[in-house]
């Protein structure tokens, strides 16, 4: 086991995975409480269009993915806040369109060495030092913003209008949240892939929701489950020679099923 941890690619995977677990652990709590479970799917699939455009243009696909993810997030957020359509409708339109654009962009591209499967399903064991560094920078910036507005974000998640009446900048917090989700999705692409990242944005928070009535404890538990999912998934992936991203998601889902069957919160009141 110790020898495994000494491997450079494993050290990079653990470091970047820890950053990702920390951010997704926190974000997933807000996603579950705000009933935005499909927002991760919407933004990540939108990012695929950006990846494909980057490949077509010969630029860094992560930069174009970031641009697409942000546009997607603000599209979903803008339509959702205006209230004329439910968010799931805008997500349904957006992610299919962005995936379609991605396929068209790849069709125009003559770069046949691109590992499309790598973008779709990720591989945390092939990260470069640059990937790890980018994850840390984005992670730290995201955490600073979350720490600044943590309680206000919770108040808004409980009831946005009540928070607004208290003078809390709810629209700003909403778009800040979407921006952080977009950045997180993009740094996750290489680790768990576009298809699987939404699981990290939902499952840890969903498990914690089953356990506690205390919102601060819910965040702590969500981070712990996120870290557990990534670490255990990595180990299973390494020792059983399974795809890393998919193994992480299946590990998290197994944890969710265990707590769903136990239903610890329903067994007590406080």
């Amino acid at each position, binding site marked *: 086991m110790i020898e495994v941890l000494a491997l450079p690619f494993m050290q990079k995977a653990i470091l970047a995975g820890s950053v990702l677990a920390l951010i997704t652990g926190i974000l997933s709590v807000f996603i579950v*409480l705000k009933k935005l479970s499909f927002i991760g799917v919407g933004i990540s699939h939108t990012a695929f269009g950006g990846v494909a455009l980057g490949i077509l243009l010969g630029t860094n696909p992560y930069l174009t993915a970031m641009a697409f993810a942000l546009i997607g997030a603000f599209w979903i957020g803008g339509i959702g806040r205006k209230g004329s359509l439910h968010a799931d409708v805008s997500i349904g339109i957006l992610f299919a369109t962005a995936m379609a654009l991605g396929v068209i962009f790849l069709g125009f591209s003559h770069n046949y060495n691109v590992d499309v499967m790598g973008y779709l399903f990720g591989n945390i064991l092939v990260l470069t030092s640059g990937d790890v560094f980018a994850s840390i920078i984005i992670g730290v910036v995201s955490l600073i913003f979350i720490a600044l507005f943590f309680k206000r974000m919770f*108040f808004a998640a409980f009831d946005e209008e009540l*928070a*607004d*009446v*208290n*003078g*809390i900048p709810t629209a700003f917090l909403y778009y800040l949240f979407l921006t952080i989700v977009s950045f997180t999705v993009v740094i996750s692409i290489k680790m768990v892939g576009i298809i699987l990242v939404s699981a990290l944005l939902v499952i840890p928070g969903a498990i914690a929701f089953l356990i506690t*009535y205390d919102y601060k404890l819910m965040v702590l538990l969500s981070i712990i489950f996120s870290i557990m999912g990534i670490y255990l998934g990595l180990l299973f992936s390494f020792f059983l020679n399974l795809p890393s991203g998919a193994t992480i998601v299946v590990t998290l889902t197994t944890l969710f099923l265990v707590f769903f069957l136990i239903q610890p919160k329903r067994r007590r009141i*406080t």
Partner: protein
Amino acid sequence: MKALEVKNLTVKIAGKVIIENVSFDVVEGEILGIVGPNGGGKTSLIRAILGFLDYTGEVRIFGFTPSEAKKKGLTGYLPQKSLYDPDFPVKVRDLVAFGMMKSWFGKLPSNWKEKVRSYLSMVNMEKWENYPFGKLSGGQQQRVSIARVLAGEPKIVFLDEPNTGIDVVAQEDFYQLLMKINKELGVTIVMVSHDIGVISSYIHKTACLNRVLHYHGEPVCITDPELLRRVYGSGADMILIHDENCENCGSVNVKGEERK
């Protein structure tokens, strides 16, 4: 001082006029009851005043626009909501503390736990401090919500059908609590209700609204059959429940018949 000034307020939703050219004001320290039939625009009026709906006309809260007033922490709001998600992970203590948070930045005061307890004791809910908010009954949730509103130390509070989901006995307690808050803390209260009989005992002034404002003044309108006809329509028949606060109050219907 005028706590609230509404001038020529008109609200349209999807092209339909919901509120038309409504003007009234509320003096600081007053309790105003806004009454009228369902669909008469009462909730829309509150939501427009708080800046949640677009409107034409002018709204001033202590001389400020709704947006400025909210930023200055002058407003409190108890929406029309029977129950919150019972599993939402927030305890009574934390919810009341949310009420203390204002504007963009700023931490809770160092003595926030004591402050929360004092507000909870004001509404007789201090024993429930560590209980999940969503697991409380409707009446208990309303009391805790009042504590949350008070924790923000607002100068004016807007209550939209605050008796929704509360039984009759709890309603009486709830209105007594509102009167106590009004007297002891000097908070101006604007309260929406379709139950004109009950709230008339607790308010200083009434505004009768059914798209247009039919009456604004002393809370005597409930005994005026002509006014009832204009506000509620000709098919309505009002049965008033008398209590010790009634004076010259009769059971009336809007056809103009009055029964003592």
